[in-house]
């Protein structure tokens, strides 16, 4: 038997950007299917149109920056940004809304800072927040889930996107909004009064969250990212929700399950917080990074004025990521622990 004659370092082949991005795209599929099932074809149309705009913006930016077009377009990073942003946008959004969001993501948040790998902020979330601040009415218009309203077909969804004036989308307050605006009903009565609530959280929303959780677990299994940041975020969010649940009074912030399976929680935890570029790097740093995002999400959800808070929480913590990295540098083997600031 021949002995292995390899010498150290036993470095394994690094995963290419292209493959990472492809895996992320694949992992979003269950979530997209569930969203389409409950809210109709709006999300799919968003993604189709958003991807076209994203590739065009990426090509334009690369051309202006005199970078090789084919190499960077094929790394799928623009597509990932587009898909993530389009999932976050309300279905049946008008075409210009999507275009403005994608252009802000790709041109402002990514290429102005130097392209993939240099952006301090998550591009998809920058696009989302710019849209939310600029067009609050369109950005909070969510369609009613299946069972509460007529779901438009694919052609109608296209029409809603490209000729917004011809199509009157029916919108309904999201469960997050209802809970925030509620100050007189017990949680149990609130659940009974509004059909938007489901078993644990919002109708449709809970299944979308479970689907994104499944996609995220698959990514974890594929070792696209480590468990630290998403788990820390879910734990702090769940803990805070449990502490302030107070048994379901009218002032309650909602049950832990409501928060874990509501809004963009799972999508944020596994697809946004885990962005390798804009998050903290060390494992301990990722625990802190994710944990603080969970705290911010809960705080802004309860105290803030916006419907959901994942984007704001992530952007605020992106600011802090270099700072966290500075104080959580792992000890090099064989060296004593460096004191901070040394």
């Amino acid at each position, binding site marked *: 038997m021949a002995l292995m004659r390899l010498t150290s370092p036993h470095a394994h082949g690094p995963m290419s950007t292209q493959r990472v991005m492809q895996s992320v795209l694949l992992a979003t599929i269950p979530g997209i299917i569930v969203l389409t099932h409950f809210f109709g074809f709006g999300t799919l149309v968003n993604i189709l149109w958003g991807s076209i705009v994203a590739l065009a913006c990426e090509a334009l930016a690369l051309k202006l920056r005199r970078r090789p077009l084919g190499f960077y377009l094929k790394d799928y990073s623009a597509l990932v940004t587009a898909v993530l942003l389009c999932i976050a946008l309300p279905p049946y959004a008008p075409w*210009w809304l999507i275009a*403005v969001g994608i252009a802000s993501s790709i041109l*402002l948040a990514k290429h102005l800072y130097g392209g993939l790998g240099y952006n301090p902020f998550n591009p998809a979330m920058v696009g989302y927040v*710019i849209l939310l*601040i*600029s*067009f*609050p009415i*369109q950005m909070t218009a969510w369609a009613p889930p299946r069972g509460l309203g007529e779901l438009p077909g694919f052609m109608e969804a296209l029409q809603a996107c490209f000729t917004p004036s011809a199509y009157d989308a029916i919108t309904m307050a999201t469960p997050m909004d209802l809970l925030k605006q509620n100050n007189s009903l017990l949680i149990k009565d609130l659940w009974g009064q509004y059909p938007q609530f489901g078993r644990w959280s919002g109708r449709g929303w809970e299944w979308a969250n479970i689907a994104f959780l499944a996609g995220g677990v698959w990514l974890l299994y594929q070792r696209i990212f480590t468990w630290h940041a998403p788990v820390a975020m879910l734990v702090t969010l769940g803990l805070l929700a449990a502490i302030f649940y107070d048994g379901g009074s009218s002032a309650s912030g909602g049950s832990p399950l409501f928060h874990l399976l509501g809004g963009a929680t799972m999508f944020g935890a596994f697809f946004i917080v885990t962005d390798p570029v804009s998050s903290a790097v060390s494992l301990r740093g990722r625990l802190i990074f994710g944990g603080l995002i969970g705290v911010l999400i809960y705080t802004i959800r309860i105290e803030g004025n916006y419907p959901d808070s994942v984007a704001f929480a992530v952007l605020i913590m992106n600011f802090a990521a270099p700072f966290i990295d500075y104080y959580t540098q792992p000890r090099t083997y064989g060296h004593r622990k460096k004191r901070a600031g040394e």
Partner: protein
Amino acid sequence: MADVSYKDLSINGLWKNNPAIVQLLGLCPLLAVTGSVVNALGLGLATTMVLIISNTSVSLIRNLVSDAVRLPTFVMIIAAAVTCIELLMQAFTYELFQILGIFLPLITTNCVILGRADGFAARNSIGPSFYDGLIMGLGFACVLAVLGGLRELSGTGALFANMDLLFGASAANWKIVMYPDYQPFLLAILPPGAFIFTGLIIAVKNLIDDRIKKRQDALKTRPVKGAKRVRVTGAVS
């Protein structure tokens, strides 16, 4: 600095040394009030007036004030000029005065004005000082107006709204609506829009400068006629 050419002063103030986009002075009003053309023009013109008055008066008294107390003296002159302008605006353009609010008295603290007073007017005679104030002010006002125009256009889809606040009732219908059913892009009017658009204006200015420089370099380094042998020594691999 006895011989200051007016041409150099003009180029400096309007382009090469523009207070707003090259020296990056006075950013606070630049970012705060450029939500529309009329606000930007109002503040730009007020700043220009203050610059002219302060530059001229500082130049007049430059030989009377000792070095030790020159800065407090200049600041007092500037504050007096700002107060005059503020009262004038309160009298003639009351609504604009209210919109600009605290940013009118804050012209006193605008670095452009003290910078020009100490850096130029304190060393030059009255003619060039007056002209420098005028040109620097115009350079500042131009950038403000362009920025205001960009932000108003992208923020509301219209241009030159409410110009009557500055130019009287006849200007009330100067408003040009570019797109009838434009969704207001709030970001452009909010403070982040000011940062983004200022950055873009600076980028465009640098781009133009680069182009000009390249053209001049190309003119300078014409290829020398006739072949020249390159000297090669040592091993060539």
